[in-house]
């Protein structure tokens, strides 16, 4: 199975919709251990992305992803803006010029994106951030691709792993981001960024599964 530019645009729309639906939920999670804006931030960013999509129709996937990234950087703000923005920008660079991508390309995208997040945020897994959802998701996805089990199923496994990682964030102390100021008090709360990462992957998988 391959994904073309039109599908990528559908995926972006699906992500935007999911984040809009979960705006309050994400903000609520952020109010427990952060500053109560994560859902608002993500929704503001992807809302602006939606307004850019018409102009991106027919463009290559690299351009689409890079534009999404730049839009997020310039509208989200906070910690998640540069992180997700960098992720999408790096993803776009990784598939520059391509009009169709397969599961291998998506692996490249995924790796580039996570690498970008790690470099920008100087964090590693286990610090109660989005990385705790994304890194296990990437691992599952890579294993699935290595075993040739098909894109849709590979994405589903990534989503499952992200969910597990997201839930795992409840058990650990935050050492990066705003929640780190809470120390022990951050335990028991699920990380908002890990949650948005899970939702984002889930929204993408949903589109691919419906193809």
């Amino acid at each position, binding site marked *: 199975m391959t994904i073309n530019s039109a599908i990528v645009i559908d995926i972006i729309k699906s992500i935007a919709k999911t984040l809009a639906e979960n705006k309050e939920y994400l*903000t609520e999670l952020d*109010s*427990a*251990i*952060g*500053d*109560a*804006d994560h859902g*608002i*931030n993500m929704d*503001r960013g992807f809302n602006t992305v939606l307004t850019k999509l018409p102009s991106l129709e027919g463009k290559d996937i690299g351009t689409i992803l890079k534009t999404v990234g730049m839009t997020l*950087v*310039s*509208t*989200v*703000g*906070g*910690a*998640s*803006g*540069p*992180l997700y923005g960098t992720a999408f920008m790096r993803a776009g660079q990784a598939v520059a010029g391509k009009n169709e991508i397969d599961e291998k390309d998506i692996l490249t995208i995924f790796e580039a994106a996570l690498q970008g997040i790690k470099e*920008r*945020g100087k964090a590693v897994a286990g610090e109660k951030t989005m990385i705790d959802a994304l890194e296990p998701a990437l691992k599952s996805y890579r294993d699935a691709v290595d075993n040739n089990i098909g894109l849709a199923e590979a994405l589903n496994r990534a989503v499952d792993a992200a969910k597990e990682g997201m839930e795992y964030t409840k058990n650990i102390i935050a*050492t*990066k*981001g*705003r929640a*780190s*100021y*809470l*120390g022990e*008090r951050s335990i028991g709360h699920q990380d908002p960024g890990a949650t948005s990462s899970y939702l984002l992957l889930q929204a993408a998988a949903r589109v691919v599964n419906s193809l």
Partner: protein
Amino acid sequence: MKKLINDPNTVVEEMMEGIVQAYPQYVRKLEGFNVLVRADAPVNGKVALVSGGGSGHEPAHGGYVGKGMLDGAVAGAVFTSPTPDAIYEAIKAVNGGAGVLLVVKNYTGDVMNFDMAKEMAEMDGIKVDSVVVNDDVAVENSTWTTGRRGIAGTVFVHKIAGAAADKGMTLEEVKRVGEKVIANVRSMGMALTPCTVPAAGKPSFTLAENEMEIGIGIHGEPGTHRESVKAADEIADELLNKILADLPYESGDEVAVMVNGMGGTPLMELFVINRHVASVLKEKGIKVYRTFVGEYMTSLEMQGASITLLKLDDELKGLLDAPSDTIAFKDFGR
């Protein structure tokens, strides 16, 4: 949520318009960005200072734009650090050829966004450097965390580094002065009530009628712990003790004191706090060189206060006493 606003989605833009309408003699707004710069920016040959952060901390940071303090202030969404493109525009607009110093509060988001803007400006050949303020002693420092937050002490960095720039110092010198302030400033805050981000519509935490939150930041985040409310003097002691233990401050030291309100605190209460701060410092032989009581770095309508001590040497004293003329920080100098 009761607020004097029209729409949570446009509140920051409308505030910016309200500021510019009120104080055109001090600031102008960059078209298309929530950026305020000095009415006379760029000032040729002077190192320019740019700071900023989420909105909701008013008068920070736009209130500190003007002679002797900031050249530009970038406002993000409420409690959300601004984006690199806006910061980049601010840098370009205030650069007078002598370089630009970014005064960043130590939050992951602020640090990343200011860094990205710095990279963008450097690609244009603008000399940019930055200092990161981390005065909040509530949060233990550790190599395992993101370090301490920047809170009200940031205003002293604006004032003193701003004075250094105003005196014609080079970017390196202004940065050195800024870092000296940062090395010598410590703060800690508490809240009697939470605050409500307009777009969220409900308070970020709740407190019972007899509870207060100690060690809060300035973004409505919960603090380090919760306690029963107690007398102002005891609260001041709790904050002061952590601050005093940190540097440490010694008998004979001279300090500047800031008793800062969180946005909804009556001045009356801040002065009651200051009375005790002054008496404790006196007892310890620490000399209060100057005091600032008011709302300098707020969290929307939160009721609460923070205490800041800045240890001074002769250079810092001279710069603290230099004149400044901004919307929210006017000083005739002495």
